């Protein structure tokens, strides 16, 4: 009888193994048969850049928001004013018209440094980077200085 039970163990293990494999197979096939994820990463990156220029970095003075005019002091405090978990990270560099650096800052600096070394790696685990330079005005004392703002946005794939 002991031998009978011992002989049924491999068969039982095999039966259970096949059943587990079946479930895993179904899970693996499902993403190929239906759309599980909508990739809006590119739109989100551009939206974030536009949001910085239209709202988060904009100079507010005398009760008005001056769109197109940046407040350099706001660059270093982005983390306190935007909640975006760990969806994307950014580096913002504000320079004057001759290219001299005025100020630079990060949005989620720790993640920016972690993700920027993974730029170009394909598939899950990799990241994508979007760089844009915009011509802007920024406030220095009471003057408005023409300059450029370079925004690098890094985002994990998937």
């Amino acid at each position, binding site marked *: *009888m*002991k031998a*009978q*039970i011992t002989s*049924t163990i491999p068969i*039982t293990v095999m*039966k*259970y193994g096949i*059943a*587990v494999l*079946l*479930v895993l197979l*179904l*899970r693996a096939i*499902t993403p190929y*048969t*239906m*759309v*599980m*994820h*909508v990739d*809006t990463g590119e*739109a*989100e990156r551009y*939206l*974030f850049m*536009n*949001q910085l220029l*239209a*709202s*988060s970095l904009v100079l507010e003075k005398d009760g008005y*928001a001056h769109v197109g005019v940046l407040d350099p002091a706001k660059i270093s405090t982005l983390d306190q*004013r*935007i*909640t*975006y*978990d760990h*969806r994307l990270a950014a580096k913002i560099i504000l320079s004057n018209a001759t290219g001299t650096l005025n100020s630079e800052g990060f949005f989620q600096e720790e993640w920016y440094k972690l993700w920027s070394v993974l730029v170009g790696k394909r598939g899950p685990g990799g990241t994508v980077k979007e760089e844009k330079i915009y011509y802007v005005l920024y406030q220095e004392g009471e003057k408005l200085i023409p300059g450029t703002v370079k925004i690098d946005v890094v985002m994990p794939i998937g």
Partner: protein
Amino acid sequence: MVCWSKKGAMEAETLVILADVFFLLLVSGVLLSELRDVQKNTTFEKAYVASDLAALLATIQVFAGDVVIEYTLPLTLTVELRGNEVVVSDDGAAVSHIFPKIITSTPVTLSSITKFKIVKKGREVTLL
């Protein structure tokens, strides 16, 4: 040395059968729940709505004035706004998407709806 009586052997066999039945029920349950989700085939719609709403909420926060947007869903869904996350669900699994939050968002859950409003008033955004 272990002695196996006829009664003991039958008990062992019954246990094996019971284990088989239990495992069969477990696997069937998992398969059926997977199939239920797949058969409904609403994952795309949920993912689409969650992404679209997240993008829309990110955009209207930047709008200078107050704004009300009427949003029509492609099917009956439950939409939840919590912090900087939009969660869309039906009877099956929920799909969520986050957005950059720069103004206050009032947490709200709208159950089984086909139409709702996105309201931005002052420095606050919510769903009604």
